[in-house]
């Protein structure tokens, strides 16, 4: 549950992107504590116990010192791909002290939001309604609805689906061309089968079964190839962007969708290609 408000600051952690962090090493002291992202620790060779001096402006005015008490792996964010997460997490009062405008009274600052963990997660809707009714000017929403990043992912999903549709279209055309050529190669065999008395429907069924088997084998090979390349692609891009983000994930749903498209498509291409052949005269097929 998240709600945006401008009420007084509460004691929760916050994220700030700090301009002009300089580094000094010192013994652990009574300085306020912060945790930093792995990217920042690596970029500035910081470790637990390091003292950092932080300023909110590039000129380095109004600096304050903090002790690093932890290093965390930042939550992967696709919209910041390629840009290292140089983050420091403060206790909120420390952050407010650091960023407060001299003209602002302590305790009257605004914060961006409050995250609430409910005793019963099923109460989120009711709780949000209750807060919105009791606190005018506050916008309380279930965390799932508050996620602003949902939009881009929905759009990207549509984009990927459109690309997949074009790829399937191209693959279908090629498949049809190949099956027509392969069926053409077997015209004499089909002609002989027709001449010895096999009905066209029986031959078509045989062709269909053959098409299903070939398509199933192709789909299985495709899935194995995808599974083998999944780890390779993820490792390459995780190394390239220094992120824990997962780029490719072959889920059972994805695998089933692929199989559900590939097998009927392969079988249909075989039947369509054979249908034209089976409608011809058996004698012509056998070239007699």
């Amino acid at each position, binding site marked *: 549950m998240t709600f945006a408000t*401008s009420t007084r600051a509460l004691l929760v952690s916050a994220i700030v*992107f700090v*301009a002009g962090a300089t580094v000094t090493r010192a013994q652990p002291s009574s300085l306020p504590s912060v945790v930093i992202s792995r990217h920042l620790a690596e970029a500035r060779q910081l470790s637990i116990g390091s003292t950092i001096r932080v300023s*909110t*402006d*590039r*000129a380095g*005015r109004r600096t304050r010192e903090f002790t690093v008490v932890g290093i965390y792996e930042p939550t992967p964010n*696709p*919209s*910041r*791909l*390629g*840009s290292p997460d140089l983050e420091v997490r403060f206790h909120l009062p420390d952050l407010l002290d650091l960023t407060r405008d001299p003209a602002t009274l302590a305790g009257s600052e*605004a914060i961006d939001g409050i995250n609430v963990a409910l005793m019963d997660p099923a109460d989120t809707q009711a709780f949000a309604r209750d807060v919105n009714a009791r606190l005018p*000017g506050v916008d309380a929403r279930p965390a799932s609805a508050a996620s*602003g990043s949902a*939009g*881009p992912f929905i*759009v*990207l999903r*549509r*984009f990927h689906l*459109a*690309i997949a549709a*074009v*790829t399937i*279209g*191209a*693959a279908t*055309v*090629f498949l*049809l*061309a*190949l099956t*027509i*050529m*392969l069926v*053409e*190669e077997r015209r004499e065999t089909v002609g002989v089968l027709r001449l010895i008395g096999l009905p066209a429907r029986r031959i078509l069924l045989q062709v269909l079964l053959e098409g299903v088997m070939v398509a199933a084998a192709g789909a299985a090979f495709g899935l194995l190839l995808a599974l083998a390349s999944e780890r390779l692609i993820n490792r390459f*891009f995780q190394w390239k*962007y220094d992120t824990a983000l997962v780029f490719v994930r072959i889920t059972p749903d994805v695998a089933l969708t692929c199989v559900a498209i590939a097998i009927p498509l392969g079988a249909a291409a075989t039947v369509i290609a054979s249908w034209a052949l089976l409608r011809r005269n058996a004698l012509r097929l056998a070239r007699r």
Partner: protein
Amino acid sequence: MTAWATLRRALPMAWRSLIRQPARASLGILGVAAVGALLLDMLLLSEGLIVSMRDLLARTGYDVRVTATEDLPRNGPRLRDVQATLSAIARLPQVRGALAVRFADAAVALPHDATLDASLEGVTGNAPHPWHVLRGRDVREPGEAVINESIATGSGAGPGAALMLRADCGVGTEALPPARLQIVGVAEFPFALTNENTIGATLGTVMAACGADGADQADVILVTSADDADAAVAAIKAVRSDLGAATNEQVLGRIQRTGFTYFQQISSVLTTITVSFALLLIAVLLTVSVNQRLGEIAALRALGFSRGRVVADVLCESALIVAMGGVLSLPIGAALATVLDRILKRMPGIPAELHFFVFQPTALTLHMALLAATAVLAALYPMHIVARLPIAATLRDQVAE
């Protein structure tokens, strides 16, 4: 006979081979067209956003952007003491004009207690305003505003009407009183998002709407350099080292390193896949086709056709399939790019004028080069089969069959 002359003589034969199997040839061409269309789109996508953004930045006429940090405007803290900062920048000899811009959200009051969400832009300085007036006139005095077509349609208001709005300036401002603005014109905002309602006014107007919140603050100062953007950036950094100043190219570089990386990556991956896919399938089509015509090719060799001539025949067949498919892929690719662009432009925060797929001559050249290379590579194996074909043994096998 030169290789070129051999190819010219092989071309009509390759054409006849294709039209003899119209269904097969049509499907091959159609397949290349579909793959070629996807390839073209991926090439357009790889640089499309950057080209479009560069065009958009250049169109506004400002070549330097000054922010409080290196973050993009609205993504980082605001500039403070903006009037003093603006004066200091505008006085520099390397600067022709400077304009401070402050953004705020606003709820525009409509009849029957309804509201319309809008984006408010307040400007001050001696550079032209970042919008283009379509009807009416530009803002001159505090309290005046220009609106975009979207808000004019949504609110039914136009030049001469009044607009009541309540600003949300980002820091504890939900209790601000409503502000009354006089609409003096309808304008086009280059960076407005799709269907975004945008209002332009003076900085004083926005500050008044925001009350005490963030007074004398701005999100960005847009600068038009006297003649050299890099010199203007250096001069600004010399007087205000605490600010982030960047030329349009530097801003593009930042965007390229972060936000647009994904599309370049997916473009590279899909370009590789589509080219491999086309290569594999054309090679298979040609190989099966050649295998079915071994007897015919052996007969041609026996009649006196040289090895080079029959090899050229296969190469020409591949080139014809790829060339016709490639030509067909251009209109299909353009249509597909329009559809894909429409899908991607639904992404939040994308200006309506920004495009993901932008035509560039270099992309077309690369498209043609990749397809030509595909045609040659795909023909290599079937050419090898034809070149090493034993004439007598093949003819004997054909007779035996």
